[in-house]
């Protein structure tokens, strides 16, 4: 079965969805990402959906689930590159992805993850004082 590749980038995982996903592929990605967060000690997950022409309720739910699971596993998920037409359609569909952090592009998404890591390292340093 096909799989969406997951790349390691520092302590973050990077996924670029380039294909029109059928439901099993989306479910497989959810499972793969969850196990990779643990095995790679990832602190952030960046999902680039700029190639996706459609995000329906199933894919929307997958993004929501990944964000929720990663939060429990102490990693931040940021979804980047959503097309404007997709954003308009998602809201009309009734799916506002309230649990998902979003950024306009990969650069800003990575910056969000790094900011959060820098913040938590500063907290750790405070704890030691």
């Amino acid at each position, binding site marked *: 079965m096909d799989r969406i590749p997951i790349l390691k980038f520092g302590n973050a995982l990077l996924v670029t969805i380039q294909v029109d996903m059928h439901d099993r592929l989306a479910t497989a990605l959810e499972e793969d990402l969850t196990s990779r967060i643990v095995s790679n000690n990832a602190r952030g997950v960046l999902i680039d959906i700029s190639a996706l022409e459609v995000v*329906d*309720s*199933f894919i929307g739910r997958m993004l929501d689930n990944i964000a929720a699971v990663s939060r429990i596993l102490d990693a931040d998920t940021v979804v980047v590159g959503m097309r404007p037409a997709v954003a308009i359609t998602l809201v009309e569909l009734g799916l506002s992805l309230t649990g998902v952090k979003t950024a306009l592009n990969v650069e800003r998404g990575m910056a969000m993850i790094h900011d959060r890591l820098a913040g938590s390292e500063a907290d750790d340093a405070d704890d030691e004082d």
Partner: protein
Amino acid sequence: MPTTKTERLGIKISDDVVRVRQLTRMLSVEVGLGLVDQTKVVTAASELARNTLDYGGGGEVIAEIVEQGGRRGVRLTFEDKGPGIADIEQALKDGFTSGRGMGLGLGGAKRLCNEFSIVSAPGTGTKVTIARWK
């Protein structure tokens, strides 16, 4: 209303949902829908194709380019011979689901289209028709 093009596609496996999206996109482009309208009707088609597969046990879609009063549009009819829907009113409500979804499929598809109709009864299957006009 006159139909200028008709395509049929079986919906039996989850790859077929992807094919329904692609077919809907192709017809939307042919009709000349704008990008946002294309995205809306393709998303609605995706929701309904998944319903046909998951709740109707599979079926088919008839996808047409239609004309009325000088306007062109895309019309999609999803048909299954599944268990049918006892309470359509309830099924159209956001958040109602009898399966693994989020309960946005039917109501969401309705909001994303200009026309929406559903015929269903227990034991007779379900037929949903949507249209989006340019």
